């Protein structure tokens, strides 16, 4: 398991290759890349600042990955989340999961994203023509995470 919170951009291809590590037990790699949109709730977004809670954020991500490993038959998980100032089209987050079969890889990748969105301590501040605003949490994200309740 690798969890990384960083101000630096990441290379999706290199990260996925490192996660796979040419392990021939792996048959499926599902990845999610989140990117900065230039539109948020109908407002133009010219920039984003991402803040976290050092120490707790890394632990929260590791706990989410542990939960995914307990629920799904997967080999490995990588989570990279950027912090600091970002521009439209910049990469924000990468979640990648390897497994023998695709069903578990898809489920686990989506699970990690749904939990990350609702449980990992990150906060976005958007710059719009109306000024800089802390982004409101989305009910649709709560609903997505609730689907995994059991």
């Amino acid at each position, binding site marked *: 398991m690798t969890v990384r919170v960083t101000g630096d951009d990441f290379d999706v291809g290199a990260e996925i290759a490192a996660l796979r590590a040419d392990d021939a037990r792996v048959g499926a790699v599902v990845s999610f890349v*989140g990117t900065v949109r230039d539109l948020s709730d109908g407002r133009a977004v010219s920039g984003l600042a*991402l*803040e*976290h*809670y050092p*120490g*707790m954020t890394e*632990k*929260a991500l590791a706990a989410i990955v542990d939960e995914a490993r307990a629920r799904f038959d997967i080999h490995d998980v990588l989570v990279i*989340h950027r912090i600091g100032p970002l521009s439209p089209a910049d990469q*924000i*987050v990468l979640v990648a999961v390897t497994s023998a079969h695709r069903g578990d890889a898809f489920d686990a990748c989506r699970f990690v*994203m749904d939990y*990350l*969105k*609702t*449980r*990992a*301590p*990150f*906060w*976005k*501040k958007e710059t719009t023509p109306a000024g800089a605003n*802390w*982004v*409101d*949490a*989305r009910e649709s994200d709560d609903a997505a995470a609730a689907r995994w309740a059991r």
Partner: protein
Amino acid sequence: MTTFAPAVAADITVDLIYLARLREAFGCSSESLALPAATTVAEVIATLVARGGAYAEEFASGRGVRVAVNHEVVTTAHRVRDGDEVAFLPPVTGG
């Protein structure tokens, strides 16, 4: 000769951490707070709300602030201990 002081609740000190919107609203990222021992998170919040202004506003019900003690999310019934790091987290919006 030895004198015996009556047993009193020992004071504790905790570090309060305000994150993101809360840090900006309070104009403060962290502070130390002295409290009676065994204070609950609900009582810590009540202490802050009593300051009025932005504190009363941001801790109003429905704002969805969560509390983490030493990096673990806790309920308002949780009792804080000396040296705890008590963080106040607005609803998260990462990813």
